[in-house]
């Protein structure tokens, strides 16, 4: 007869050994290539990244679903940084970015996949500086913005800008910013502070482009930046000049295209290496008049008609 105590302790020993031996295998994960799966005859294009571009990308995807019914474009946001990280990890086909990729990121992509990231410029966006609609301020210079937002900047109160912000009782400038995965954040930092300085700590770092405009609409003391397509009735866009003494420009389609508005940036889409057939077709459709019309309708600036940048 088997002694039940010995049986139990033996079983226990076997169980522990198996579990401990199994631990290293829990670390293994399957790396899947980018989603070009054919699900029931449909082709998938995974498209994620910039929050600035997410509404635009969604609008494109919806219209394209009627143009090419057997291709399905899956759009998500997360920020330009998240999109680039996903591209480097090869989990998306197209990454949307509201800034250029860093040399570091390009190097990582090259190391991880052996392919060079391809850049496609798909439109422009003017970065508007928003304040509450009852704020008397109308115009601001890049230098003043750098002193408000920059690490060693000394402007902390509205009165230092020579205005009387009545609806704001405490006179404190509440800086609204984006989280560091945002391309908008990166671009604004570089435009104001260059590559060597950082933002001042203590700004309210929000998740999305829309959140910035909404918070400013509720907060008379606030100032913030977001794409010009996110304006609401509760906020006002400031006119911006490069330096004191130079003319102030409001963010519009014209001032973006003729490069007079100082903080406008191109919007990019990146793929790893040469895009495959159906992705190339999608990109070409985006550059076509149909795709660019959607850019304009979404509140962004379409590519000027003189220089169409088609995918090679």
């Amino acid at each position, binding site marked *: 007869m088997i002694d039940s105590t010995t049986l139990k302790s033996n079983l226990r020993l076997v169980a522990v050994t198996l579990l401990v031996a199994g631990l290293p295998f829990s670390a293994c994960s399957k790396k899947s290539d980018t989603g070009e799966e054919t699900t029931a005859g449909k082709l998938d294009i995974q498209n994620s990244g910039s929050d600035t571009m997410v509404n635009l990308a969604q609008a494109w995807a919806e219209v394209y679903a009627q143009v090419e019914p057997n291709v399905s474009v899956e759009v998500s946001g997360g*920020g330009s940084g998240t999109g680039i990280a996903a591209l480097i990890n090869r989990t998306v086909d197209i990454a949307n970015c509201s800034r250029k990729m860093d040399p570091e990121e390009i190097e990582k992509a090259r190391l991880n996949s052996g392919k060079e990231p391809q850049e496609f410029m798909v439109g422009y966006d003017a970065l508007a500086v928003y304040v509450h609609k009852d704020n008397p301020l109308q115009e601001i210079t890049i230098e003043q913005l750098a002193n408000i937002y920059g690490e060693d900047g000394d402007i902390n109160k509205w009165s230092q800008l020579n205005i009387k912000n009545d609806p704001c009782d405490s006179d404190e400038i509440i800086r609204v910013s984006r*989280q560091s995965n945002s391309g908008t954040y990166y671009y604004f930092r570089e435009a104001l502070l260059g590559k060597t300085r*950082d933002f001042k700590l*203590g700004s309210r770092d929000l998740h999305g482009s829309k959140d910035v405009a909404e918070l400013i609409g509720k907060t008379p003391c606030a100032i913030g930046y977001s794409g010009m397509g996110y304006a609401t009735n509760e906020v006002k866009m400031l006119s911006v000049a490069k330096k004191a003494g130079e003319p102030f420009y409001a963010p519009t389609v014209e001032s973006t295209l003729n490069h007079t508005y100082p903080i406008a940036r191109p919007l990019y889409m990146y793929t790893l290496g040469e895009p495959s057939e159906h992705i190339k077709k999608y990109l070409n459709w985006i550059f076509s008049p149909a795709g660019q019309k959607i850019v304009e309708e979404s509140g962004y600036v379409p590519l000027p008609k003189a220089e169409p940048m088609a995918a090679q």
Partner: protein
Amino acid sequence: MRERRRWEVLIEALIEWIIWLCGFSAILFVFGIFFFVFREGAGFLFGGLNLREFFTSVEWYPTSVSHKRYGVLALMAGTASVTVLAMSIAVPFGLGAAVFVSEFCTPKLKETLKIVIELLAAIPSVVWGFIGLTVMNPLIITIFNAPIGLTVLNGGIILALMSVPIIVSIGEDALKAVPDSYREAAGALGATRWQMIYRVLLPAAKNGLLAAVLLGIGRAVGETMAVLMATGHAVKIPTSLLDSVRTLTATIAAELGESPEHSEHYQVLFIIGILLFTITFVVNLVADLVVKGVRGK
């Protein structure tokens, strides 16, 4: 009665072993998670991270182009401030509610209250965050005349509301577990109701109540979505309840997606995970020692 057959003995042993495995797996999973988190962050932790700067510096610039700095002091202050405020609201309310439900309620009211409190616990944390963002935000601006409503106060109140159901549920269970003979004995000695609760029941249920409070603290420290939306997500040490802060958990949630795998930024975020683990562990350890100390008196 007949003698047990061999296969019956074996089945018995097998079932006991399966149950033992389930219990053991709880410990295994905790260690497994800690091992995984530690492994992801270990590279940078032992090779390059300046621990002094990490713990004492307010400057959190992981994505700086020219000058990366990883100081989490402001983030720790954020977590601490929101948790302390939440607990100072939740513990009195929670324990009071637990005592009420356990001692003063009629049975019908008790059933209703328990259901309502469980409902409060079932609200997803992102919904709480949304409430903080859209309801509490303008409320705080108008009541306190604050420049902005996404503050420590907002996060603290939301976290308190999230922790109360846990404290009430477990606290009430702890009080229910005290044998009725204690209550009867106190009554026989002439104690009033409040005296009975304060001098007999609470000390007797001490361990369970402490467990309830610890779980509440654990929930508050580990809460991510609600504080991400309700505290304003600003890297600074709060000087008043109406300041915006950023917590350790919200930092991980917001930044892990954008950091490429195994980069420095990614590893630092996992090190913050280790830090959170350690904080919870220390809180539990201290509480355990306090309870043992009080019992040994």
